[in-house]
C-alpha cells in the first residue's frame, strides 16, 4: 500500500510539473497574459507609409505601451495604409487631436506607433480616426535625400574649396 502511495505522489508531481511548464510557456514565454479581451477600444489612423509595422506591434504614448496594432490594410482609393489599433480601455482620456507616428525602437528594433497628445477637450473613443499622422522613416529614402543634398551643396559652393586649394 505504501508503495502505490509513493507512486501516486510521483505521478501527481510529474503531471503537475508538466502542466505547470505548459502554463509557463503560455503565460511567461508567449504573449497570452497581455491579452485583455473586451477591455479595449478601436481607433484608426491612416499613414502614407506604415513601414515595417506589423499586427501586434506596440502602440505607445510617452513611451508606455497602451495598446497594440490590430490590423493593417491598404486603401486602394487613397493609396494609404489603414492601421487599426486596440487601445486599452483604461486609457480613455487621449485627446482626439492626438497625432500618430511610426517610430523605430533603436536602430534595428521593432517599429511601433507612438501617440502624442494634442490639446483638445474631446477624447478618442471607439471608432475614432486620428487625423494627424507621420509616416515611417524609410532608411533608404532618408539616406538618398541626405546624399542628394550634400551633393547639391558641393555643387552650389565650389569656389571656397577651389580658393583654398589655390592658396595652398
Amino acid at each position, binding site marked *: 500500500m505504501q508503495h502505490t502511495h509513493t507512486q501516486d505522489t510521483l505521478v501527481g508531481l*510529474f503531471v503537475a*510539473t508538466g502542466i505547470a511548464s*505548459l502554463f509557463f*510557456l503560455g503565460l511567461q*514565454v*508567449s504573449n497570452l497574459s497581455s491579452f485583455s479581451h473586451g477591455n479595449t477600444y478601436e481607433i484608426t489612423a491612416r499613414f502614407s507609409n506604415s513601414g515595417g509595422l506589423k499586427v*501586434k506591434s506596440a502602440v505607445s504614448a510617452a513611451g508606455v505601451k497602451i495598446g497594440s496594432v490590430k490590423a493593417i490594410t491598404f486603401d486602394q482609393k487613397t493609396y494609404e495604409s489603414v492601421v487599426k489599433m486596440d487601445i486599452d480601455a483604461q486609457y480613455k482620456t487621449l485627446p482626439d487631436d492626438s497625432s500618430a507616428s511610426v517610430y523605430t525602437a533603436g536602430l534595428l528594433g521593432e517599429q511601433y506607433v507612438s501617440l502624442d497628445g494634442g490639446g483638445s477637450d474631446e477624447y478618442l473613443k471607439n471608432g475614432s480616426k486620428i487625423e494627424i499622422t507621420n509616416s515611417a522613416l524609410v532608411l533608404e529614402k532618408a539616406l538618398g535625400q541626405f546624399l542628394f543634398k550634400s551633393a547639391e551643396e558641393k555643387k552650389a559652393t565650389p569656389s571656397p574649396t577651389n580658393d583654398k586649394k589655390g592658396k595652398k
Partner: protein
Amino acid sequence: MEFFRYLGAGTRESFTKLGRGSFFLISILAGISSVCVRPRLLLKQLHSVGVLSFLIITISGLFVGMVLGLQGFYILSRFGAEETLGVMVATSLVRELGPVVAALLFAGRAGSALTAEIGLMKATEQLSGMEMMAIDPIKRIISPRFLAGFLSMPLLAALFSAVGIIGGQMVGTGLLGVDDGAYWSQMQANLDFRGDIVNGVIKSIVFGFITSWIALFEGYDAIPTAEGVSRATTRTVVNSAFSILGLDFILTALMFGDN
C-alpha cells in the same frame, strides 16, 4: 533477377508489417476504453514511462538551453542584437528542439524499455498465458502503456522547452550579461501562443503517438528469442528516430510553411 525477387519480397514484407501494425493500432485504441475503467494500470505505466524519463528530459533540456544561449549570444552579438537572444532560444526550443529532442530521448529511454518488456513477455510466454486465462493482453498490457506514452510526451516536451528557456536565461543574463528584462519582453513580444506554443504541443502529441505505437508494435511483433528481442529494441529506436525526424519536416512545412 535475384535482385528483383529480393525487392519484391521486401516490399511485400514491409506492407504486411504495416498492415499488422495498423490492425494492432486499432485494437490498442479499442482497448483504451477498458483502461479508463482501471486507472491503476495507467498510473503504474505513467510512472515507468513518464516519471522515470523526467530526470533525463530535465537535464538534457537545461543543457540544450544553455548551449543555445552561448551559441546564440556569440552569433547575435556580431550584429549587436543580443537582446533578441530570448526570442532565438525560445523559438528554437518551442517550435523544434523541445518536441524533437524530447521525443528522441523518449524513444531511447522509454520506447526501448517498452519494446524489451513486451518482447520478453512474449518470449517467456506470459502473453499466451494471459490469453489462456481469458485476459486480453492488449487491453491489460498494451493499451495502458500506449496511453501513458501518449499522455507523457506533450508534458515532457513542454518541460524540456520550459527548462531550456530557463537554462538559456541563466547563461544569457547570468554569464554573458544580456539584460534580463529584454530577454523576457522580446520573447513575449515575438512568440505567438497559437502559432508557436500550440503547434509545438501538437508536434509532441504526434511524436508521442508514433513513438509509443512503434515501441509497442515492435515488442509485440518481436521474434520470441533473445536475439529477436534485441533486434526489436534496436528497430524501435531507429524507426522512431526516422519517423520523428521525417514527420517533423512534414509538420513544420504544414505549420510554419506560410510565414
